């Protein structure tokens, strides 16, 4: 008797193993924060063709520093590949500095028409208010608004 279930499982495993590697880590032991952001972006991109499109176009070095745990990562987007570094690496395009809760809220921003993050719902208003009050800082925002929007789309779980 053929074990069709087993064969299906094997095929699924093979498909998973042959999927291109989208996210890699530069450090032998990625920090919990690095693993979480890398894992989140990978799951987002693999699960959503629009996000995959953004990911394939995105070339930028993005720093994220969580002020209340004093920990940061650098997300080096290389047009279809992401290298995650523990800590802030030099030559970043943008750097986001915020508390842990705000970083989580950034990943909950809804994406509206034309791929713009929505700032008028409850989560969006909270993020905008943090930005206005200086509790969320984005270095390099003005010359890189489009990059910030693309990063937000890739990062958002909504």
């Amino acid at each position, binding site marked *: 008797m053929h074990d069709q279930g087993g064969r299906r499982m094997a095929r699924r495993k093979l498909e998973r193993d042959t999927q291109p590697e989208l996210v890699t880590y530069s450090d032998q032991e990625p*920090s*919990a*924060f690095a693993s*979480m952001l890398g*894992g*989140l972006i990978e*799951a*987002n991109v693999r*699960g959503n063709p629009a996000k995959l499109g953004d990911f394939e176009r995105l070339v930028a070095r993005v720093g994220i520093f*969580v002020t*209340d*745990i004093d*920990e940061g990562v650098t997300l080096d987007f290389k047009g279809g590949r992401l290298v995650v570094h523990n800590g802030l690496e030099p030559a970043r395009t943008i750097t986001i500095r915020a508390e*842990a*809760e705000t*970083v*989580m*809220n950034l*990943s*909950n921003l809804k994406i509206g028409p034309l791929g713009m993050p929505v700032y008028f719902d409850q989560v969006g208003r909270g993020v905008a208010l943090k930005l206005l009050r200086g509790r969320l800082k984005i270095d390099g925002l003005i010359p890189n608004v489009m990059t910030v929007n693309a990063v937000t789309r890739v990062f958002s*779980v*909504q």
Partner: protein
Amino acid sequence: MMPVKAFSDEWASAFKDEVNRSATYKSAAKGWKWTVGLVVEAEPDKNFPESRGIVMDLFDGEARDIKVGPAADAQKCDFVITAPYSRWKEVATKQLDATRGMLQGKLKLKGDLPTIVRYTKASQEMTECTTRVAVAWPDGN
């Protein structure tokens, strides 16, 4: 309120009541349909000699059941959060914020990340609920 023994059946029941009393949780967890397991790792020197598992059957803003049992049961859930006893005590006594704890790797999370991130507010409120249960800790308060 009389304190209940940490991670006992009485604690599970009091925790479930707190979750179901929370209007914030009810609205933030709308659409949630996965089981959550909390693994509390043993720390014999803290008078917590055996690991325990808390299995939470959460559905659409309601805690249908919360049970304490072997750690292996909790590890079978859709989402599993693991930490040693003293870390959970820090969370329940508001010395450690659960979101920060996860980002720092003090609480280890297993499960679909986008889903758990989508329900950040619900998980924060659930943590708040644990802080509202009066607990008698095995290593003293």
